[in-house]
């Protein structure tokens, strides 16, 4: 009799696992087969998974194809099929045996070609712990393709294809695999692209159901609690639970118990080292035959309390002051008050503490040097969870099998970006489009501001715009074509502005209006295609126009102001000579006004709508310019006309001011209620207008509170409309990334190495480190540090100023342990690259190359990238640092600033 083959072992293993009561009570298998075929060729297995389940089935359940065959663009001759069926345990057992005998796989009535399969036995995959939105690197990779392995874990028999010859195209063109995987995951939630090493394999999954368990780590008591219940049909047997924690290759905690139904306690300590280095405890339950019945890598969201490490008592929050330049070159001071983030317990997604977000206050000064406080809130919570998951998820690298090493998609780029392990900045170039859009916004802002644009347009112009608007609203297309007529209508509008035909607008606003002309001209050049982004803007514009058309504002004037019009008209009507000297238009205007006034009551305010207001403006404008007006008007009449014109203007202004006042009140209320405020475009536009008014007129109608709000935002508004804003904004984004890195990895210190590192840069970065008392170092080259206004200064003077600046803005330096040194003269060697180094990250230092100096991050193209050998960079930094501190004299000389001093 021949010896036992590997397939005999495989069948035996299968039978053992499938036997009632061993690890479950299985009656059938849920069989999912993904196979590919070309015309007239036999199908071959791409990936199959067979999941044992308790529910009974009639053998020979008809296989059901879940979708029409999938065709990939790059493989037009191939078709991929997903087929699902339910098969009895015996059928699957037979399929394994048959493969051993005949090397043909047929589990569901369809014979599938495969490579020379090799069984891999004895694998147990712990329960699936992955959570949506998190980087689940500690989870077993196989969980990406196993079915519902959420509870005790699953035993696996894997029939592996070590050659994968039929799948060569996936390795030659990896995007094909991604495409196929995407299609498959729409039907079955598995991710085969991330497990390219499993292509061609057949996985037989036995989820353990003979017991049901839950694991929980009790933070206070420092023990694991295991709840266990036996399947109603199972014969309870003796079980052991074993739990261990390893750190740096050593087992740092271990507990073992015989467990009983109900609750079992395993006392085991978890310290912060094991946590911080990603070594979550592993707990295994096994029976007297050594069979694993449950295993968990990261116990049921159990988190140790780390509050002791982060509790900061006795001192208040850290306060310091930043000095920043606004776009007018003046300086303003921002005082930042930060409360160190305290983690009272590690955060569980289900129990988010209400104060988990970081809160702090920005203080700014208004023009009267009064502080305005703005509460800021940072959603640190999500990051904290992500951090936690990453801490405790063990870097459970699979054994370096050949195909596993060749996995195509090792890590997703999005995750790398999220953790800022690589991030690319493009500088201002990326925002050109946005800057162009601001022209369109300006047009809208103009209209909103003056609330009279509707009346500035002729009816014809307005109708054209309205028709464009209607089409925009009704047309659900990404691109919209404007007719030539419509384009010319829009252009005509702009030209009228340019040629000063419309004179009611102030010069500054006319300039803004003209800016839109260029945009429209460009649209015309592109053979009138309006891009989606412009459609939104046009919609907005047209809505405003329509609204304003309806909202023409009336004003009321006392009759005595208007009497002059009646007087002039009556006089002119009588006096043929005067009449002849006037334009026909003007006479018509006078008549229109005269007719209107005649029907008005004499005893109350006379209501004038916009059209009459314009007529009065035109009338006054005409006589004002007319050289021989004395032949038509007496001086007294002209003065009265002037008074009327003045009154109309005044009423219009009052009306506008009242509108502005309401906007302000609204904003002021929101500001007071919420302590912080989100400004949308509309707010910005309104405020910008009001700010202008304040600057120009010192508007007496504004209250002190209004002025406070205005002054607070004026700086922001100015930035928002200039390149200065964009630069600042991009710079800030990059600075935030650096701050993120410091807080994410700087638990034991952060060193910043940049030849141009200034006091401002340090305030912007290391001052934000939330880890109390950790060693922060900053290293620069004295002769290179320069602010624009300090060029050419002697190094001594320069250092004094840096020191002075930090002393001025340092605040209370709460828990701040920072040294700022510079290479001076010949002490130490020069350096060029810029790094952010975290010196003691458990398994060695980590370092990021910044690609540019801190003062220019985000402003131009550079890449922030984690360096492969952080330790070497740390060593280089330390070597230089040691040179700068080699003796007392040198140390004193190279020290710029220190906290505590």
């Amino acid at each position, binding site marked *: 009799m021949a010896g036992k083959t590997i397939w005999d072992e495989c069948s035996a293993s299968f039978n053992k696992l499938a036997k009632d009561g061993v690890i479950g009570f299985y009656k059938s298998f849920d069989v999912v087969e993904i196979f590919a075929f070309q015309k007239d060729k036999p199908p071959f297995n791409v990936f199959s998974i067979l999941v044992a389940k308790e529910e009974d089935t009639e053998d020979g359940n008809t296989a059901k194809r879940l979708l029409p065959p999938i065709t990939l663009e790059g493989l037009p001759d191939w078709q991929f099929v997903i087929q699902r069926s339910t098969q009895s345990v015996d059928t699957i057992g037979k399929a394994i045996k048959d493969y051993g005998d005949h090397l043909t796989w047929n589990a569901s009535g369809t014979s599938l070609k495969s490579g020379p399969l090799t069984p891999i036995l004895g694998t147990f995959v712990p329960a699936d712990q992955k*959570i949506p939105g998190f980087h689940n690197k500690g989870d077993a990779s196989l969980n990406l393709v196993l*079915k*519902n392995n*959420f509870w005790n874990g699953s035993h696996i028999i894997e029939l592996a294809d070590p050659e994968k010859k039929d799948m060569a195209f996936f390795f030659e063109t990896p995007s094909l695999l991604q495409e196929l995987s995407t299609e498959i*995951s729409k039907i079955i939630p598995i991710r085969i692209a991330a497990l390219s090493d499993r292509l061609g394999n057949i996985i037989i999954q036995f989820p353990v159901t003979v017991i*049901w368990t839950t694991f929980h780590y009790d933070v206070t008591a420092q023990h694991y609690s295991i709840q266990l219940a036996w399947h109603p049909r199972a014969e309870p047997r003796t079980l052991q639970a074993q739990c261990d924690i390893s750190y740096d290759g050593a087992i740092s905690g271990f507990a073992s118990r015989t467990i009983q139904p*109900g609750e079992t306690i395993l006392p085991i300590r978890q310290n912060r080292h094991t946590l911080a280095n990603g070594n979550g405890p592993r707990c295994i339950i096994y029976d007297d035959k050594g069979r694993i019945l449950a295993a968990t890598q990261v116990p049921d969201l159990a988190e140790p309390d780390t509050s002791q490490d982060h509790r900061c008592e006795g001192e208040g929050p850290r306060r310091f002051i930043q000095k920043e330049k606004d776009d007018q070159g003046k300086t303003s001071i921002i005082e930042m008050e930060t409360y160190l983030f305290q983690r009272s317990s590690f955060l569980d997604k289900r129990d988010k503490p209400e104060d988990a977000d970081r809160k702090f206050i920005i203080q700014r000064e208004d023009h009267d040097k009064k502080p305005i406080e703005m509460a800021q809130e940072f959603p640190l919570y999500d990051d904290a969870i992500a951090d936690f998951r990453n801490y405790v998820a063990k870097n459970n690298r699979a054994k370096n099998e050949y195909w596993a090493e060749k996995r195509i998609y090792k890590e997703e780029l999005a995750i790398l970006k999220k953790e800022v392990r690589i991030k690319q900045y493009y500088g201002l170039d990326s925002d050109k489009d946005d800057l162009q859009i601001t022209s369109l916004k300006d047009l809208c802002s103009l209209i909103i501001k003056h609330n009279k644009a509707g009346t500035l347009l002729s009816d014809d112009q307005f109708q054209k715009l309205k028709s464009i608007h209607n089409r925009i609203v009704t047309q659900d297309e990404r691109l919209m074509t404007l007719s030539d007529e419509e384009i010319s209508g829009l252009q005509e509008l702009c030209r009228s502005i340019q040629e000063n035909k419309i004179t009611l607008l102030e010069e500054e606003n006319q300039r803004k209006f003209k800016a839109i002309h260029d945009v429209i001209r460009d649209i015309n050049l592109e053979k009138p295609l309006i891009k989606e982004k412009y459609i939104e803007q046009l919609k907005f514009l047209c809505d405003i126009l329509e609204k304003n058309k309806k909202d023409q504002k009336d004003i009321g004037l006392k009759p005595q102001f208007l009497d002059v019009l009646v007087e002039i008209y009556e006089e002119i009507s009588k006096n043929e000579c005067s009449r002849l000297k006037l334009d026909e238009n003007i006479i018509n205007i006078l008549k229109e006004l005269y007719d209107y006034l005649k029907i008005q009551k004499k005893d109350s305010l006379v209501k004038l709508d916009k059209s009459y207001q314009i007529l009065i403006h035109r009338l006054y404008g005409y006589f004002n310019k007319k050289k021989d007006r004395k032949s038509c008007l007496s001086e007294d009449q002209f003065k009265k006309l002037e008074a009327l014109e003045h009154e109309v203007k005044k009423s219009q202004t009052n009306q506008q001011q009242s509108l502005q006042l*309401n906007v302000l009140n*609204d904003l002021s209320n929101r500001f007071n209620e919420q302590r912080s405020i989100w400004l949308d475009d509309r707010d910005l536009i309104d405020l910008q207008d009001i700010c202008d008014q304040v600057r120009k007129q010192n508007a007496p109608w504004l209250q002190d509170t209004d002025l406070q709000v205005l002054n607070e935002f004026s700086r922001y508004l100015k930035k928002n409309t200039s390149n200065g804003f964009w630069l600042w904004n991009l710079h800030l984004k990059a600075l935030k990334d650096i701050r993120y890195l410091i807080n994410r990895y700087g638990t034991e210190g952060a060193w910043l190495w940049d030849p141009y590192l200034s006091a401002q840069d340090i305030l912007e970065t290391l001052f934000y480190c939330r880890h109390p008392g950790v060693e922060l170092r900053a290293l620069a080259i004295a002769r290179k540090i320069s602010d624009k206004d300090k060029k050419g200064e002697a190094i001594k003077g320069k250092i004094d100023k840096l020191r002075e600046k930090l002393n001025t803005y340092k605040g209370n330096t709460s828990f701040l342990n920072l040294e700022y040194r510079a290479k001076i003269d010949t002490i130490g060697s020069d350096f060029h690259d810029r790094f952010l180094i975290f010196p003691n990250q458990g398994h060695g230092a980590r370092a990021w190359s910044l690609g540019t100096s801190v003062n220019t991050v985000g402003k131009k193209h550079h890449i922030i990238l984690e360096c492969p050998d952080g330790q070497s960079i740390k060593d280089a930094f330390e070597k230089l640092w040691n040179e700068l501190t080699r003796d007392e004299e040198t140390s004193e000389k190279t020290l710029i600033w220190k906290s505590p001093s």
Partner: protein
Amino acid sequence: MTWNEHLNRAFEEARAIILPVPPPTSFERVRERCSQLPEGNSKLWEPFLTEFYFLCDIKDNVPVSSEECVSQKWANTLAWLIQGLISWRKGSPDSKITLNFMLKLANAMDRDDHFWPQMPEEIKINNELLETLADEISSIESKYEIKASGSSYDIIAQFAAADRANNWYELLPLYNHLNGLQTDGWPGWYAHMLAYFNFDALIDATHNIKQTISARCLIEYLDDDEAFRLALGTESLHLKFAVIYKNIYKKTKEALAQNLPAPKLLTEPLTELLIQISEIPDLWQAWMKVFNSQPNDFPKLQEPLGAALAEMTPEAIGAYIDSFGLHINNSTPHFILYSYNQDRKSVTSCLKSFRQNASLAKRNILWKAAFKRWMEWDFHRASTKYVPCRITFSILDFAIIGYLLESCNDQECKEHLVEYYDKLNRLSDNWYFYHEEYQREKWRLLSHMQPFLHAYNIRGTDQDWLMEEPYPAYDPETDPYYALKFNDTGSF
């Protein structure tokens, strides 16, 4: 002396005055201002306040001056007022200003509706006066003007638009922000006087009121009984709305703000009014959406609404059920959960009142409509945004239990439960990428089972129909395995 004692004394003395001193000095100044300021401007009445400071003092519980001259002044003012109202003529000079002045005065003296009953019946004879009041009321049109420090322009504009469009749903939230809206006092004074002397004329005058803000002005000084009579009699929907809003929301909130007990509500006329409204299907549908978007905002509405539902048609009952926004109550912030539970309790108090008042046939109609809606909703099955994160209750639970206890028999109820248990045990047949997805389905099923389990447990007992705590699907004592597998309720 109390206010009313002062007033009684003043009335007594006034009756003895044959020739009161005409007119008080402030009247002239008010008249002067009327030519300069628009109606409704508060500065209009500044001279009035100076002249009649003693009325304000008494109103604010400042001890009234014991000076005889004050007492005489009041009596003289009353006498002038009585004679003025009796002899008021429409065509006389400054008739409108005079009338407004007199009614402002009357309003200042009125407290606890004690004033008008003491006025002589002779006023009724002045038809010209009463007709003018009715005419003015019928032509009332409020301007949507704002004070400088009041509501923002946008809110007023939105309110005006919603009011014009009878968009009740948008109107309600805006209604609360109308503090800065400038309104006239006179419609309220007119309505108050007319309500006393000729209520039918008041009703007739209000049929065409199409502005909520005007309606609000009109009922400002009416007592609850008058307001409901008016609401029942008038054809103006805006007036009906204003009366309901004032009685079920505004007064309650105001009392709450002042730490006073909630005022007593006239439930019967409210019930009657609700039944009346339910006869206009579109309106009923719209108003139910308004009042049921957050039922806990209107706790006073619930009992009368329940009683009214008992008298309504199946269509109106259906509209009531359809008006609720059904939500799953798993939002993390506890105040949202709290407010949801409060809404659920409010709806339950309505349904309890309905249960007490309605016949079994009517009850079956409502329970069935609720059950159908609840099943279709299926705990946000159609939504990807809202997913259950724990066992969750619904705002319609009381009605669902009603359905299971009164519209289903025991056997049907059990069959449903068996089906649910079967689904629960087959849940892992489906394939989930994340455990969370499985949990969602599990909680959805367990949530479905809650009313069934509760009904199963309380059938034949007097226990409350509304369950407060989730039921475990399995008993840990008898089914430890399945209890461990399925009894995770999420954190409730």
